[in-house]
């Protein structure tokens, strides 16, 4: 049978990410997929070599818009462990609070995009309406909607007042109530299930061998959540990673939706346990040595490898983002699936190409 090659992306109606795939097709079935990236490579890793280590927080935040807060968190944690800085407890809790807000807004964004990918416009708007509340909290507490620049080496740059904490707690409760209704559409709707159940199955063994990260791995039954290592204040909070066994697109949706509830729960715990005190410690001297710092982002684990030489600038700042780890899994899932499922499949890895290329 003859084979056809269909180019998919980098401009595609359902996918806002500049990912190009060459799909080798046999009728409607994909036989092979070759990815091509490189449309948004900005050389940020190179740029960090010319900036001071304190300025780099702002550079790494711009690796990715959606998980900007966690990029800065991972970087600051790395530098702090190099310089043996113990940050105040309140800063740890504030970092977790903002990180979890980021996770909520990232997952809600993704759920909306998924609904949009299989053509459920109204669901998409319902989800994004809730996301807007989170964005408003972000703007009110941190000053910006997306790139919130709250983390700095030695603590956080802003504090949250007691009234604001109460307000956040009320708003996340509202989001929880609203999501309960939307949840039914994702979990039980016949059409939605038809598009997701059994599509792009990734077995536990494959997921492990392909080095997947985050919700992708957890949907395939791998208990891999870096928050379990207890960085920042996670060690003092009570949570259990959400794991599904099926490894299909439906399982990945369920994991992400349940993680929104988990994040809401973590935020409420954070607010309840928030200690009083300073939010930042002064930083003196320059970092020296090398360190690996890992943080759980909405999309999975991010790895920062830092090498400093005792001067103001770093020798090397290397970022391994979760999408980078999930693309091999995508290549594994695509062969054998239908052309119509490709947008959903690509979306379920929650791709962030600007993360991948940096």
């Amino acid at each position, binding site marked *: 049978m003859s084979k056809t090659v269909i180019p998919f992306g980098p401009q595609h109606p359902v996918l806002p990410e500049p990912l190009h795939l060459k799909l080798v097709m046999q009728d409607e079935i994909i036989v092979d997929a*070759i990815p*091509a*990236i*490189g449309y948004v*490579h900005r*050389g940020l*890793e*190179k740029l960090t070599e010319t900036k001071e280590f304190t300025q780099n927080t702002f550079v790494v935040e711009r690796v990715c818009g959606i998980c900007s807060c966690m990029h800065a968190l991972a970087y600051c944690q790395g530098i702090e462990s190099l310089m043996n800085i113990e940050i105040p407890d309140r800063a740890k809790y504030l970092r977790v609070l903002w990180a979890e807000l980021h996770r909520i807004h990232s997952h809600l964004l993704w759920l909306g995009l998924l609904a949009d990918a299989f053509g459920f416009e109204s669901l998409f708007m319902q989800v994004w309406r809730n996301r807007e509340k989170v964005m408003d909290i972000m703007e009110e507490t941190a000053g910006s909607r997306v790139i919130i620049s709250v983390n700095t080496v030695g603590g956080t740059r802003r504090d949250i007042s007691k009234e604001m904490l109460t307000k956040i707690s009320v708003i996340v409760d509202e989001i929880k109530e609203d999501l309960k209704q939307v949840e039914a559409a994702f979990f039980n709707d016949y059409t939605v299930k038809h598009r997701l159940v059994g599509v792009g199955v990734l077995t536990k063994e494959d997921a*492990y*061998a*392909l*080095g997947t990260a985050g919700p992708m791995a957890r949907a395939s039954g791998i208990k*891999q959540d*870096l928050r*379990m*290592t207890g960085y920042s204040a996670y060690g003092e909070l009570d949570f259990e990673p959400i794991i599904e066994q099926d490894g299909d697109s439906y399982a990945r949706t369920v994991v992400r939706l349940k993680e929104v509830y988990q994040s809401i729960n973590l935020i409420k715990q954070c607010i309840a346990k928030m200690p009083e005190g300073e939010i930042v410690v002064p930083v003196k001297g320059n970092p020296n*040595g*090398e*360190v*690996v710092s*890992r943080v759980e982002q909405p999309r999975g*684990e991010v*790895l920062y*490898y830092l*090498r400093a030489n005792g001067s103001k600038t770093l*020798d*090397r700042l*290397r970022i*391994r983002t979760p999408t*980078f*780890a999930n*693309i*091999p*899994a995508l290549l594994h899932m695509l062969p054998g699936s239908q052309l119509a499922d490709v947008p959903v499949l690509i979306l379920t890895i929650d791709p962030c190409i600007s993360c991948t*290329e940096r």
Partner: protein
Amino acid sequence: MIENMTEIAISQLLSETQKMKYEDYRFVTASCVSLGDDGCDVIYHFDKDLEMKHLKLRVGKGEELPSVSKIYFCALLVENEMKELFGINITDIAVDYGGHMLLSDEELESPMAKQQITIVEKKGAK
């Protein structure tokens, strides 16, 4: 300092990686640091139950480095990246983009490597 870091030679890389695979470690990524004329430091990161292990080796200028993508398929992206950005000669990558994964034709070669950059004007470019 990084815990669980083992320094190895290039010739040991494939056997050590195979051992990692056998011990059920997950490949996380590889990092590369340019040392100028001395070549590059390459560090392979592995993970098992949230515990990390690292293999560190030094690649001299022009030396060949075997690819681990036959053992861990997911290493292909990062190896292509290292080949492109640092100019390390990595052989036998499962899918070799030939230096065009991130960069296009017009860009500088191996931009992350610390080296003297000379811009040669191409003939007929004007």
